[in-house]
Every structure is written in structure tokens, then in C-alpha cells.
């Protein structure tokens, strides 16, 4: 029997959903609007902001004053690098936990997740000191490792959930069909896990791209990604909203576009296992 949901009710739900969506998106929308205003207009009351004239000035200034491309390359290197490095460690780890679980598998998984609850600042000193000693301060290598480590629990968890969904009987069938462990992983498991691995990669690139605590604290000029690029516009001489907004828009644009095109994959990845 179909549920009795009236058209009226559906319309109402749609409106509520749109309102919530807009509220969530509003700060980003406002940043984008402000980035096309002059500094003077940007600090006026909201209605006057909307009616004032539009300009590309802020973008021009930001371009002139700092090297966007260098920060962009750093962001790409850090997010892609840390994700790939994470996969290399997480795939075997998740495989082992999903298919050859031991008594402590559950505990290890929970422990890994619990590290995400530790305030990052709590380990800032030790890591900062380590970075100084090892000469890793303001290096991309060092940050790739740190970003990989903070996201590793999420990568392992996501892959673990994905692998868990693959029925054990299919792997047993492969074994009965004469496949060696290598062939079983190569021809049966990996192709079946590719959608899951793709969403894991996407989500982790986004997380690493947006990460600001470590990237701000452990970099200066050489390895600074786009988060540092944004931060450089919140200067002690006062906030310049228009320029800050222009910098922010430039920093989030690539990941926003990537997210837009891969949203189907992302949603599927995040809800996988919840809905059969």
C-alpha cells in the first residue's frame, strides 16, 4: 500500500529542504558575493551590499599580491599525496580486518576512531618539535605524512565497511575456482571494491584540502597550501572582507567543482552499507 503523502505535504517538504540547504550554503554564497565587491561596499549593510556595483578588483589585487598557483599546487600535492599514501597503508589493513578478523579487530577499529576525538592541539608541541628535529618544518613531505595520519582512521573505516559488504562466498567461490590469493584480490576483490575506493579517495582529498590546523601551524612559505593563502588575508592590519572573500573563493572553487561533479559517488560512498 502506498503511503498517504499528499501533494501539499510533498511541496512543503521540498520547500523545507530547500530552505535548510540555502541556510547551510548561505555563508559560501555570501563570500562569493563579497568577493565581487569593492572593500568599501563589502562592509555595508547586507541589502546595500547586494545593490552596490560589481567588480573584479579584489581578484586582481589578490592575484598581484600572492602566488595563487604555488599554493594551489601545494594543496593538490598534499591532498592527493596524503590520500594515496593512506590507501597504500589502509587497503591491506582494511582487507585484513574485514576478511581475517581477530578478537581484537573491533577494538582496534574503535581505538583508531577514538584518535579522531583527540584535540589536535594536544599533540601540536610534540609534532612541532619532531618536525624541527627532523627538518620537516615547512616541507610537503612532512605535511603529507601528517595529513595522511590524521585521515588514516577514516580511510580504513570506509574501506573496511566496503570490504565487509563483499560477500565472503564470492571470495570462496574464487578460491574454489582455482584462484590464488593474489588472483583473488586482483580479479575479484579489487574490481568489486572500486566504487568504494573511489568515494574514499574523493572524500579524503576533500578532507585534506580543507584541513587548516596542521597546514597553518607547520608551514610558512614553501609548503603552504591554499588554507594558508586564505589565512594570509586575515592580517593584523584589519580585515579586508572583499580580498579575503576573493582569496577564499579561489581556494574553495576547485574542491567545490570537484565535489559538484562527484556528488553522486560521494553520497553513495557515505551511505554505503546503510541502505541495501
Amino acid at each position, binding site marked *: 500500500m502506498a503511503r498517504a503523502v499528499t501533494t501539499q505535504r510533498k511541496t512543503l517538504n521540498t520547500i523545507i529542504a530547500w530552505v535548510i540547504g540555502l541556510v547551510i550554503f548561505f555563508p559560501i554564497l555570501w563570500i562569493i558575493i563579497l568577493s565581487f565587491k569593492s572593500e568599501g561596499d563589502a562592509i555595508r549593510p547586507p541589502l546595500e551590499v547586494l545593490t552596490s556595483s560589481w567588480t573584479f578588483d579584489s581578484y586582481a589585487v589578490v592575484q598581484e599580491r600572492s602566488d595563487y598557483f604555488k599554493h594551489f599546487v601545494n594543496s593538490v600535492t598534499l591532498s592527493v599525496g596524503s590520500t594515496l599514501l593512506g590507501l597504500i597503508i589502509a587497503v591491506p589493513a582494511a582487507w585484513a580486518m574485514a576478511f581475517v578478523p581477530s578478537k581484537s579487530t573491533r577494538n582496534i577499529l574503535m581505538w583508531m576512531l577514538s584518535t579522531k576525538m583527540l584535540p589536535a592541539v594536544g599533540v601540536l608541541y610534540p609534532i612541532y618539535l619532531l618536525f624541527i628535529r627532523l627538518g620537516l618544518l615547512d616541507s610537503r613531505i612532512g605535511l603529507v605524512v601528517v595529513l595522511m595520519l590524521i585521515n588514516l582512521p577514516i580511510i580504513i573505516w570506509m574501506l573496511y565497511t566496503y570490504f565487509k559488504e563483499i*560477500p565472503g*562466498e*564470492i571470495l*570462496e*567461490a*574464487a*578460491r*574454489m*575456482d*582455482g*584462484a*590464488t590469493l593474489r*588472483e583473488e584480490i586482483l*580479479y*575479484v576483490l579489487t*574490481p*568489486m571494491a572500486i566504487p568504494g575506493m573511489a568515494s574514499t579517495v574523493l572524500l579524503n582529498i576533500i578532507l585534506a584540502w580543507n584541513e587548516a590546523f596542521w597546514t597553518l601551524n607547520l608551514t610558512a612559505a614553501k609548503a603552504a597550501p591554499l588554507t594558508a593563502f586564505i589565512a594570509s588575508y586575515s592580517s593584523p592590519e584589519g580585515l579586508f572582507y572583499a580580498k579575503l572573500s576573493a582569496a577564499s573563493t579561489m581556494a574553495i572553487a576547485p574542491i567545490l567543482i570537484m565535489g559538484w561533479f562527484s556528488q553522486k559517488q560521494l553520497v553513495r560512498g557515505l551511505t554505503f552499507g546503510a541502505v541495501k
Partner: protein
Amino acid sequence: MGQIQLNQVSKSFGPVEVIPPLDLTIEDGEFVVFVGPSGCGKSTLLRLIAGLEDVSGGHVLIDGRDATEIVPAKRGLAMVFQSYALYPHMSVRKNIAFPLRMAGLDKAEQDKRVTQAAEVLNLTDYLERRPGQLSGGQRQRVAIGRAIVREPAAFLFDEPLSNLDAALRVGMRLEISELHKRLKTTMIYVTHDQVEAMTMADKIVVLQAGVIEQVGSPLELYQRPRNTFVAGFIGSPKMNLIRGAEAAKHDADTIGIRPEHIGISSTEGTWKGTVGVSEHLGSDTFFHVQCNASPEPLTVRATGEMALSYGSEVYLTPRQEHLHRFDAKGLRLE
């Protein structure tokens, strides 16, 4: 060749012994069915033969060769799973060819064998489809195709028909039986459905709690059950088991009589009773009769035309030559 021998094979999961040491020989070309209630260890036994579980003790011999330490891939056995376990990302053709590809056969030989198997199983039109685009019956046929292409020493079936609807199940049952007649390869078939066991098997192995209760042909088991468990498990509807005074008259702790071996009459007979629920199958009618001989209602089989109303009085007469007698331990008395 496909003779399989189990010598004192046992299996424990931690401290729990699911299969105490048992011996069993399956001859080459035999169709053997492992049957028993859920949790009786029949699937575990099959997995021990397949090598998907390690034995805790004893030896598995395939064609006289000790296979206990051999990995599943090298045992030369093929298995059909309850869930079909097809590779969802591969076409039907690739699914069936997979074992051949793993065996390193060249492409032409692979194609030849896949085509042959597809013809046998009526899958020719579906070779380029993915498993997700097939019905349950077709998927099961693909799983069987994947098993037959490699010409294994024996086929292992783990409840292959449980996921199919009733009508399809009867059809597939026949197909598998026919396949066995044609290939003459050893088949070991696990099911909890005693009808499947009776209709398909050359030899039935009845299991309960990991212990073999009886091994024999379907009719042997039906006509001469070794104990009350087998008596009650094999046959549908179940054999009527009667304890107490009525059994004592026959010098037994329990007597058993099958529904078709009880005469029913409205005028005269040994036991007087009242008719409860009747089940009309068309060809037969089963009456559940409450009578003084037993606290439990007795099931009686009569012709399809016979009609007795609920609560009416009847007389039942067991045919003495078909009476089964069991002792206090439930073992058959001769």
C-alpha cells in the same frame, strides 16, 4: 574419478565440537545428499571436503590421495553456493570462463568449453549479460556452468535451491539430476529439505548434531530407519511415533507408522478417534486424527476423494507389517 573418503574427520570451533570424528566413503559417480535440520553440521562437513574450513582432526582423501593439507584451489572440486556467489562485475561468459582462466587455458579452449556449457544449461542467449540482469534460476544455472566447465573430480552443492521459489526448485532439481546422469561425476549435495534428498540421491547421509545417524539409499532409509530421528526426519508428512501403552503391546518403547500405512474407516477399526484438520492436496488427503492410542494427533493419508468433516468419528487400523519398533534409546528393533 572422484572418490572421496573421510577418515575420522572432526571439526571444532574453539571449545565447541561441531563434528565429532566421523568416517564416510563417497564412491566415484555417486550422488550423495547430506540432509539434516539446520545447524546439524552438514554445510560444515561439505566445507571441510572443499577445504574452505580446516579439519580439526582426521584426513580427507580424494581419489586415495590425502588432500587434508591441500588448498581448495588445488583439490579439483567445484562448488555451487546457496547465494550463487557469481562475480557481479563479470559477464556470464567471463563468470563461466573464470576457473578456466585461472587454470591457464588458452582463449580458444576457454571459448569452446563456455559455449558447450552454455548450450547444456540453456544460457547461450545470456552470455553477455551481467549476473544482476538474470533471474534467480538463471543465476543458479550460471553457477552450475562455472562448476561444470572445469570438469572437476566432484561437485559440491551447498543448498543450491533454497533461494528459489517452489516451482523453480522442482525444475532445477530435475535439471541437476539429469546433469548427474549425463556427466556421471560424483556429486555431494547439502540440503535441509528431505524431499530433495529423497528425489535426487543415490545415497543419503542423515546428520544430526554433527553425527551421522544413517547412511543408505532413499528407500532403505524410508523403509528401515535406524532410529526414531531418521524415522521422523525422512518422509513427508512425518512418520507417526507413538509411545506408552500402545507401544508396550508390541514390546517396544516407541512404535512408528507412516501415514499411508494406516487404514481409515467410519465404521470399524483398531483405534477410535475424531477427525481434526484435513489437508486436501487433490491427489491425497491428509487427516489429523486425535485418538486414544496417542496423545499427539496421528496423520493419516487417504485418497484425494475422501471427505470427512471436522469432529466426525473414525476408526484407524495400522497395517501390522509396516509397523516400526524402537527401543528406549530410540534404536530400531528387528
